[in-house]
Structure formats: C-alpha cells, structure tokens
C-alpha cells in the first residue's frame, strides 16, 4: 500500500464527495473565463458572503464555495449565455465528540444571454450526519430544489440587483426546502416511525410477564373463544 496509491484513492474519494472544494484554493479553481466575467465575479463574492454568514467555519468546521462559469454552446446567436455551477460545502469533524457531518449544495444558475435580466436556477442539497458514540447512527438526506427563475424589474440597471435576487432565492431554498422540512422529519422519526417499529411499552402498561404458563393459558382461552364463535 504505497503512499502514492493512498493519495490516488484519497483524490478520487474527495472528488466524488466534493471535499476538494473545501481543501483547495478558491482562486486556483476559477478558470480564465471568470477573470473577465464581472457578473461571475460578483456572484462569487456574493456566495462567499452567504457562506460566511450562514455556515460555521471554525472549531472543527470547514466551509467553502466555488463557482465555475461555463459558456453556453450556442451556435444560433452570438449573444453568449453563461451557466454557473456553484458548489457549496461545509464539513464538520469532531472526533473527540464522536460526531461528524457535512452539508453539500450544488446550484446551477443559467443566464441565457450576457446581459439578460433573468436567470434560471436549479439545485440539490445533500446532508450527512454521523454519530458514533454508542454504535453507528447516520442521517443522510438528498433534497432536490425546485427550478426557479429570478428576474430583475426593468427599472433597475445594475446586475447587483440580480445577484441579490439570486442570493435571496438560495436563502429561501435553504429555509423552505431544507431546514423546515428537516424539523418536520425529526419530529416524524421520533413520534411516528420509531413508535411504529417498536412500542415504548406494551398495551398493558407493564413489562412483559415471562411466565410461560400464563401465556399458554391466554392462548388456549383465546382459541377457545374464537372456536366458540
């Protein structure tokens, strides 16, 4: 098991789960195209701020966001639309507290033409929480966000407004489709599903009586009753 093999496996794993965006330098990730792209850069700055405001980035947490801009391959007109792929991720590892977790979000923002005032957005969020204090309990969640369009009213001219609209939408997505349902889920898990799997107590409200004779008697009686009907 040479170190280079281990390194290769690590790289493959990181790319599969998106960890590389946490571990790598942001500027290096951005391609040449982004440097000329005002909108892309502003979008990038807006996302950086969003991540800072919403995700912890210290004491065992690491968060990061990366944007790739991809030019639309549009032969019909030269207006040149852009698609921005945003990867946002936060990872928390606390081995001494026996837990770890990650929040990984992937958004696609599509701007049909260069100066368009309208973008369409798509996204997916993946959550993973793991606690291993007494065994191994993991929560995994996959959420697909609904497609959306974001439009600036015609009176505003700067693209700042569009960017703010996009960020507001991201925020709304997070709240409405991730955080709120999650609360409902936790409630359901506890009160509904776990109860359906195993009752807290039998209907008799007492612990089970392990005396075999008693049960045989009960069974015989109930069979009798059924036969009698």
């Amino acid at each position, binding site marked *: 098991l040479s170190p280079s093999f281990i390194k290769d496996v690590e790289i493959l794993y990181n790319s599969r789960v998106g960890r590389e965006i946490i571990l790598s330098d942001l500027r290096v990730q951005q391609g040449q195209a982004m440097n000329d792209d005002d909108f892309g850069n502003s979008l990038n700055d807006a996302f950086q701020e969003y991540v800072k405001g919403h995700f912890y980035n210290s004491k065992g947490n690491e968060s990061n966001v990366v944007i790739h801009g991809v030019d639309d391959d549009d032969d019909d007109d030269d207006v040149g639309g852009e698609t921005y792929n945003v990867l946002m991720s936060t990872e928390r590892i606390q081995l001494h507290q026996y837990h770890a977790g990650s929040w990984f979000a992937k958004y696609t923002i599509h701007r049909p033409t260069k100066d368009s005032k309208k973008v369409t957005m798509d996204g997916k969020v993946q959550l993973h929480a793991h606690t*291993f204090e*007494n065994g191994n*309990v993991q929560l995994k969640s996959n959420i697909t966000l609904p497609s959306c369009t974001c439009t600036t009213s015609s009176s505003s001219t700067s693209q700042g407004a569009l960017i*703010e609209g996009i960020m507001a939408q991201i925020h*709304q997505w997070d709240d409405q489709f991730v955080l709120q349902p999650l609360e409902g889920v936790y409630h359901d898990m506890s009160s509904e599903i776990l109860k359906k799997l195993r009752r807290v107590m039998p209907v008799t409200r007492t612990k089970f009586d392990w005396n075999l004779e008693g049960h045989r008697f009960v069974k015989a009686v109930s069979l009798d009753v059924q036969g009698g009907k």
Partner: protein
Amino acid sequence: MDSEEKIDASLDILKRMPPQETEKHLKNITILLQPDSNAIEDLHHKVDCPLQTALDTIVNKPFVLSEYNRAEGEFYRSPWSNEYFPSPSSFKNNNDSSNNKNVEGMFFKPSGELRELEEQANEVLESYREMYYGKDSVGSVYLWNQGGGIQEGGFAGCFLIQKQICKEEEEEEEEEEQNQSGPPKRSQSGYWNSIHVVDVNVLSGGDRVKYELSTTVLVSMDLIYSDGGNHSNKSGAKEERAFLPMVVEIGGSMSKHKETIRPNPTSTTRGKLEHIANIGQMMEAVEIEIRSNIDTLSIQQTKDVLQGIRKDSMASSWAGYVGSNVVSGGSRSSSGVGIASLLRPTASQNPMQAELMARLKQRSTCEDISQPNK
C-alpha cells in the same frame, strides 16, 4: 496481512458505512478477502446484517434467517418444525455415497431437552414480540450446545426479532381554489432488527448461573417526501405539481453487553423454563434502553451536528423575511402574490438580514418557474 488484521480492517470499514448498506459492503469486502475462507467466515459471524425471513411451509409460519440456524450453503432451520428449508434432501443424496455421517452432521438439529427449551422459548418470544412489535413482526430463537451441554446447564442461543414497515400516506386532495398547502405525499419505511446472543454457563459450585447477553439493534427509518416536505402549493388551479423528492434516511446500529448472575434453576424441565424468564428479562431491559437511546441520543445528536454546521438552522421564525419584500410593483405583482402569502413578514434578526431586506425592496422578484406565464 494475516487473518486477524484483515478482519480488523474490514470491521473498521464496516462500522463507518451507512448501516443500511452493511450487507452490500460486506459482500464487496468478501470479494476482496477471497480466497481466505476462514477470514470470510469469521467476518460473517462478527458482522450483523439486517435480518431476512423465510416461510416454514410445514406449519406455515415465518422464521428468521441467520448465521445461527444456517447449514451448509443456503439451508436454514425453522424453529417451528425443526426442519431445514429449502429441503436439503437432494443435497444429502448428492453427497451421500461416502460421507453419510458427515453430511448429516452438517445439518444440526437440537433434540431432547435442548429442543424442548427451544420450543418453549419460541412460544414465549412470540407473545413478547406481539406485545411490543405487533403482529407483523417475525421472531425466532435458536439454541445450541456449549459449555458441557444442557445437562450441565450450559448452552447458548440467540433471540432474533425483525420488524419492517413500508407504508405510504396520502391525504385527500383539498379544493384547488383555496390557497391551501397541498398535502405532501409521504412514504415512510424502515426496519428494526434485534439480535440478542446469550451465553449461559453454570458457575463452579453448581448453585449459580451466569448469563452473558450481547445485543445489537439495527434500525433504519426512511422518509421520502414528494413535494418538498412542508412546501405549500403556490397558487393557480391548473398548476402541475412538480415532483420534488426529499429523501431523509436515518440508520443506526447500537450494541450493548450485559451480564447477570442468578441462582441455578432446578434441573427439572419446569425449572429450565426459568432460564427463559431470566434471559427474557435481561433482553427486555436492554431493548428498552436501546430504544430510548436511539430516540433521545442518536437522533438528537444528528440534529445537533447539523446545527453545528449551519448558523441559522431551526430558526424558522425568520423564514418570512424574504417573501414579504420580494414582491414589487408592476405586472409581476400578481404572480408574486403566491410567494408572499405563504411567508409571513417577521422582524429581521441580524444586521446582515436587515441590509439585504432593505436592498431587495422594489428591486427584484423571484418566481416559481411552474407558474403559468402571464
């Protein structure tokens, strides 16, 4: 790498994998371990997979499949009729010629006192299981000799319970004119597997008996929301509901180990029933403990982890701020009504929000792509 190291490494991997996928990963690791069949067998004994069941066609009752009632290949013994399924007669015939005795030996069947004890244990477990898990659960007890055999008071066994649910819930559709929250279509499923392995040994002196119980509980709970959980219907009678799956899975495995020492039940058959009572009481206590652990600790802990990741998680009171200011004047206002109606305006809770709120006023709108074009 020697066998010990291989097994340790494999267990290391398996305890980190999502518990629901244990079986899949066990298979893959087995492939890696080939052709070391000793290591493979050891590993299978050490790893607990979700339990499967099969039907005992002689008495028409289901029983649980496990390593403890398995014989050569894929034959499993039913505790109800004490027979192997599928019937191994063809297997026996094929291997008959030279190794008759060996083949029979592969298909262990408890007999005499041990078998009686096993039958009674299965009976009691059935009642216990129905009280806690309902009628659609499956449970089995398998006993085998050890430590001098049942005559000396020593034996071992496993108590297995499996419960599965797979359910869909769909409430009635509400009137479309009302801007009501559309009922989310939810599907819940999951399983609970109890695996109790007990060792019974008479202590020297003969008057006391030691029970050692190792319990593993495998739980899985899956929730699949279509329609994005609590997401409410925006507006419009003819809107098509987009399929927005939200999948949340919680899976876990917890193990506990307990020991008790009790006075040795008398050697009569009646007395042996006390073994079942003793073991049963331990088992019940452990299950109650684990269930409450799963409920309070583990589920809560995963929630805490996510709260440690995201700053404003669970602060649902500020959900409303975006919608109320997003709607702007002009032709877009009518389509924006849907968003505003479902989000309540609330006071902002930190400076960043306040700034964003102010900037958003009158500057942009966001609308659901599924709304009809104006």
